[in-house]
């Protein structure tokens, strides 16, 4: 018995040691310690010129130029002048700076190598200063090769750009890069998490899962609140009826929405330390956060994914409330609060989306704000209030920023607290009253809290894994006159409005109709018959059948339109 305990304790201890090592040893990009390990392996033969097929593509030509001029410093695979690449040189040349070829004592026919060496051209975090192929090509043409700047022809510069894009798995053999089309090609889109960050995240997830297992075992032991409850216990009623705590009834959607909101608050606050809300700095600061800041990509992806999942969770929550008739009095005002929260969250999603200030948001911003103009009478004034001027510009960005991090967030925080308070004031989650003389089974809050903790851990691990493997979208910075590129689709949570906009008058289809849908939902408990008291607490009560049909039809239409927009 004793030894088993010891194993339980030793295994996590070893795991955390390993996790700590991974966490603190790795750096973004190439790490010197790793390079040294590689250099101890025998030096492979230097590779020969790259074979090309006929007719050679632009990148193939670039590979030839690269082999002749760039490879010695930037590495055969664009890895940069790291130790493993230098180990392929003759032994006396391993130290490029001290060997007398490229140090302070460089001979006349050579040049002095910068102390930092030559940067990597491929891999995560490479080429951070170039957002488009145009910038990269122009830089190569003007400033490369280092020892003879300006000696490359323009064609050679584009060939090299094509080759470097190919090294980064972003090449397109069909396309011949030129000074005009290259502005639309991204250099570092979709940077995945650096490999060195992965073990730390996975070990963190593992700990969370093990912790959840312990807690679930603990709650199987039966919960006896021996001490006075802690802060988290006190957020709950002492006991709640068992019927209200059933996952098959609540789907856990309300609780999950709160969890995602908390994740959004924390990751959003962290993002604010790096985000620059200026037209010139915004997209670049997101590139830096994504590709250079340790765990910056993770934080951004967590923020992105909790925002997407929050919208979905809220829709599920709404559908659950309608299909169980839970909005019947006394809960009908809380139903309105929930609908307001849904609208506010959609606005938060939209403002957050625009804050990227890259080419991906151009048309969403134009269409989204022009829709406001179509409102009769107040439209023009409302438009100027939202974007802070006659047309989108620097004031637009700062206003969206203010709404996103302050105005809307404050409103959502306040109404969320009100919503939760009302849940308790209205007698908890809807359930039928006990039959006469029957004693309701009640669940103590300690058990409720442990259930919630387990649910949060599962959701948290799903979030972490999603964030590791599916990066949030990012695009090149907004161009002054960038009408030639950009995704013209609305963000997915507004695709349904984009679909309806095709049918005609923008005010009618783009503003009035969505507003009418929300108002119609809000009227359900006030206009149509409600579920009877004894019917509450189960799915599909007969009392509000009409409300269910109307509500689910609205949700289904939104869902179908979104799907249509997605597929088109």
């Amino acid at each position, binding site marked *: *018995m004793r030894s088993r*305990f010891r194993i*339980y*304790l030793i295994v*996590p201890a070893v*795991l*955390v040691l390993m*996790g*700590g090592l991974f*966490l*603190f040893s790795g750096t973004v990009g190439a790490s010197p310690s790793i390079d040294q390990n590689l250099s101890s392996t025998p030096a492979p033969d230097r590779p020969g010129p790259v074979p090309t097929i006929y007719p050679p593509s632009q990148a193939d030509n670039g590979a030839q130029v690269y082999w002749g001029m760039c490879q010695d410093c930037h590495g055969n695979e664009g890895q940069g002048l790291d130790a493993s690449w230098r180990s392929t040189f003759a032994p006396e040349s391993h130290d490029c700076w001290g060997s007398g070829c490229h140090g302070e004592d460089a001979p006349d026919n050579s040049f002095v190598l910068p102390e930092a060496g030559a940067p990597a051209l491929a891999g995560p975090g490479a080429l951070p200063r170039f957002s488009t192929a145009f910038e990269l090509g122009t830089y190569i043409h003007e400033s490369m090769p280092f020892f003879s700047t300006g000696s490359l022809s323009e064609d050679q510069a584009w060939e090299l750009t094509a080759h470097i894009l190919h090294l980064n798995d972003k090449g397109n053999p069909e396309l011949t890069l030129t000074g005009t089309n290259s502005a639309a090609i991204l250099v570092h889109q979709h940077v995945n998490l650096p490999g060195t960050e992965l073990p*730390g*995240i996975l*070990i*963190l997830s593992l*700990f*969370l899962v*093990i*912790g959840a297992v*312990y*807690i679930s*075992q*603990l709650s199987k*032991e039966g919960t006896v609140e021996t001490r006075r409850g802690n802060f988290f216990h006190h957020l709950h009623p002492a006991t709640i009826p068992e019927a209200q705590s059933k996952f098959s009834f609540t789907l856990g959607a309300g609780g999950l929405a709160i969890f995602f909101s908390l994740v959004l608050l924390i990751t959003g606050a*962290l993002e604010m*330390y*790096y985000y620059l809300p200026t037209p010139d700095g915004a997209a670049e600061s997101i590139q*830096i956060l994504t590709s*250079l*800041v*340790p*765990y*910056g990509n*993770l*934080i951004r992806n967590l923020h992105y994914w909790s925002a997407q999942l929050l919208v979905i969770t809220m829709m599920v929550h709404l559908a659950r409330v309608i299909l169980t008739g839970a909005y019947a009095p006394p809960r009908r005002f809380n139903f309105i609060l929930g609908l307001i929260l849904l609208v506010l969250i959609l606005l938060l999603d939209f403002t957050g989306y625009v804050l990227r200030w890259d080419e991906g948001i151009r048309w969403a911003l134009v269409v989204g704000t022009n829709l406001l103009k179509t409102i009769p009478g107040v439209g023009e004034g409302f438009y100027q209030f939202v974007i802070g001027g006659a047309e989108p510009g620097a004031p637009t960005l700062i206003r969206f920023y203010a709404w996103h991090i302050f105005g809307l967030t404050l409103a959502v925080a306040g109404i969320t607290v009100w919503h939760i308070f009302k849940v308790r004031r209205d007698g908890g989650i809807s359930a039928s009253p006990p039959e006469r003389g029957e004693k309701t089974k009640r669940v103590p809050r300690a058990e409720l809290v442990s259930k919630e903790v387990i649910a949060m851990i599962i959701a948290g691990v799903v979030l972490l894994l999603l964030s590791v493997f599916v990066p949030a979208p990012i695009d090149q910075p907004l161009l002054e006159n960038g009408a030639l590129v950009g995704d013209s689709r609305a963000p997915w949570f507004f695709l349904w409005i984009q679909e309806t906009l095709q049918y005609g008058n923008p005010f009618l289809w783009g503003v009035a109709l969505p507003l009418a849908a929300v108002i119609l939902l809000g009227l359900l408990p006030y206009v149509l018959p409600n579920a009877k008291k004894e019917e509450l607490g189960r799915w599909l009560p007969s009392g509000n059948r009409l409300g269910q049909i109307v509500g689910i039809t609205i949700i289904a239409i939104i869902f179908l339109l979104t799907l249509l927009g997605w597929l088109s």
Partner: protein
Amino acid sequence: MTKEITFPRRAFLRLSAKITLGLAGFLGLGGLVRYFSHEPAGKSPSSYDLGLAVDFPASGELIRLDIPAIIYKTKDGYIAYSLVCTHLGCTVEEDGENFSCPCHGSQFDHNGNVLKGPAAERLPSLEVGISENGRLILETGAMDK
């Protein structure tokens, strides 16, 4: 039987949950430290072009507030001092023959020596060189701005 199990299952589970979740929190905290460890690129330049030597003001004195520094032309060559107060970094102002700091009243003489506290150290002197094409180059090294 003797009381063999001194560690009840409930207490053990409670402790284990606390330890694993605590370790997870520790890992998260480590990640947070790394998140804030990013060093943004960009430092202030370490040398400044002061223009052609022949264009140096006839008064023999040049103040460049962007650096900030003061450069004198003497018969032995050029002398330059940083105008950053060594107390807490305000830019000192010319006050007759001396320099005084508007923030906390430190005073320095013409040669940068401390006349009056709270500054404890003199104004650092900076190197002025002349480039091949006759331009004055001020070397600030790793000067704090």
